[in-house]
C-alpha cells in the first residue's frame, strides 16, 4: 500500500514556490502535505493530494516538470524510539532510504513518507512489524 507523491522541479528563484502553489490552488487541488528539498539553485517540491494525476496535469500544462512516485506512508507509533525502529528494520534489510519527511495528516501516531530503493520490500517489512501504512484511500 503506497501513496502517490507529486514532485515538481523548481528553480530556486524568488516567488517560484508561491507561483506553483497558486497554480495548484486555481486548479482546485487540495494539498494534504508538502515538503521542499532545496539546494543552492533548485528545489524539488513533494506534495500529497487526493488527485495526483490531476495535479500533475495542471503542473505540466503550466510548463513545470512534474512526476508521480509511490512513497510509503508510515504511521509511526507515538513512542520513543519508534522512528529508529522503522528505519532500523529497513536498514537491516539492506534497503536504501532515499528520503523521509513528515506528513501533516490528521490521525494517531506520527505519519511520515519514506522513499526507498525497494518500496515493496520495505513496506512488507514495516507491516510485518505491525506498523501501520496508509494508502490513497486513507488520505482525507
Amino acid at each position: 500500500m503506497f501513496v502517490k507523491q507529486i514532485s515538481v522541479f523548481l528553480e530556486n528563484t524568488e516567488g517560484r514556490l508561491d507561483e506553483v502553489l497558486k497554480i495548484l490552488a486555481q486548479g482546485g487541488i487540495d494539498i494534504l502535505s508538502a515538503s521542499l528539498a532545496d539546494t543552492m539553485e533548485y528545489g524539488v517540491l513533494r506534495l500529497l493530494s487526493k488527485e495526483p494525476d490531476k495535479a500533475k496535469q495542471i503542473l505540466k500544462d503550466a510548463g513545470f516538470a512534474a512526476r508521480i512516485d509511490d512513497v510509503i506512508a508510515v504511521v509511526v507509533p507515538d513512542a520513543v524510539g519508534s522512528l529508529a525502529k522503522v528505519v532500523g528494520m529497513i536498514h537491516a534489510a539492506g534497503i536504501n532510504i532515499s528520503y523521509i519527511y513528515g506528513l501533516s495528516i490528521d490521525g494517531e501516531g506520527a505519519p511520515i513518507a519514506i522513499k526507498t530503493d525497494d518500496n515493496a520490500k520495505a513496506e512488507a517489512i514495516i507491516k510485518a512489524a505491525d506498523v501501520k501504512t496508509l494508502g490513497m484511500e486513507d488520505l482525507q
Partner: protein
Amino acid sequence: MIWNEAKECMSRDELEALQSARLVKQVNRVYHNVEYYRKKMQAAGLEPGDIKGIEDLDKLPYTTYQDLRDTYPFGLAAAPRSELVRVHASSGTTGKPKIAVYTRRDIDIWAECVARCLSMAGITKDDIIQVGYGYGLFTGGLGAHYGAEYLGAMVLPMSTGNTQKLIDMMIDCDVTSIACTPSYLLHVAEDLEKAGLVDKIKLKSAICGAEPWTDEMRDQMEARLHIKAFDIYGLTEMMGPGVACDCEYHKGLHIWEDHFLPEIIDPSTLKQLPKGSDGELVITNLTKEGMPLIRYRTKDLTSIEYDKCECGRTMARIQRFRGRSDDMLIIRGVNVFPSQVEAALLTVEGTTPHYMLVVDRVDNTDTLEVQVEVAENFFTDEIKSLEKLSKTVHDKLKMAIGLNAKVKLVEPNGLEHFDGKSKHVTDKRKLYQ
C-alpha cells in the same frame, strides 16, 4: 623602438611590390606542394600564373576552419616532413584540433615578428620578461618565449597556474615585463595589491593577448601596476601571437604586412571590400612554409587603417575588433563554440539540447555558466539524481571544451527556445564595443 625599420617603415609602394612577389611565390608553392590547394584552385579555374600580384588576391578561394579539419593533421603542409620542426594546436576544440606546422624558417620569422611586437612595447635586450602563457601545444608560451629570446631579453618561462611563484619571482628577479592574458594580469594585480606588494615590483610593461580586451582594462592595468600595456594579436592557424601588436599610440594593431597579407571581406557576400571598410579580417601567409594558409577567414570583424602611424611605422593597423562573424567565444583564452556544448549535451541522457551559455567576467576571470533544461523524462524526485546530472554535464563539457563550467539546471522551457544557435549565448563581458 623599431626592431626592423627597413621592413616596418617601408613605403606602401615598396611593400606592395614585396607582397606581390611573395604572394606569387606562395601561390606557386601551395599549388605544386599541396594537393588540397591545387584541387581548390583547379575547381575555381585558376592556375598559378593567373595570380600576378596582390591585385589578383580576390581570385583565390578562401581557406576556412573546415578546410583545416578536412586536412587534419598534415594535409595542408607545404614542406616535406623532414623540414617540419614543430606542431602547435589551438585550444579547446573538441575532436580534431586546428593544428599548425612550422619549418625552422617559420619559427625564426615568428620569433622576429614577436620581437618586433615586444620592441614596440619598449622591451629591449636589457629587459627581464616573464611569460605567463601556457607552454605546450598552445602557441602563447613558446611563441612569446622565442620572440623574447630572439630580442635578447632574459626570459622566465613561468607558464600558467602558480600566481604566487610568479609574484615572488617577479619581485626577486626584478622582472620588468610580462606576457600573459589581460585577465590574468588583472588577477596578478589584485594579488599584488592584497599583499601590499605593488611598490616592490619593477614591472614597466605588459604584452597581453589571446583574448579580446578593452581600453578600460588597459587603463586599469596601467593605473594599478604603473606600467604600459600593449595588445598583441595572433592566431594559431596563421602562426601564433605576434601577427599584430599595438604601438604606444594605441591607434590599432600594426599587422606585419610583409608576412601577413590582410584584407577585409563581407562575410555574407564573401566579396573583398575596399580599404577602410568594416568586415571580416582575412589573412594570407606570405612567407610561411610549413602550412601556409591562403585567404584564411579569421571570422574576426574589424576594419584596417592604412595611413602612416605617428610611431613612424607604415604597417597597416587592425582596428578594434567588433565581434565575430561566427559564434566562437574566447573564454580564459580557450576557443569555445556553442556547437561543441550542444554536441556534448546531446550525449547526456535526459537533457534536451536546450541550453544557454552565460559568459561573464568576475574578479577579472572569465566565468562560464551553462544553463541546462531538465527534461521531464529525466526529472526525478531525488536530489541526488539531479546532482548526478549536473556532474555528468560538467564532466562532459570539461572533456569537450576543456573548461570547468558551472552547470545550472533550469526548469523545462525555462530558457527561450531559439532556432539560431548563436542565441544560445549571453556574453556579459562587453568585450566588443
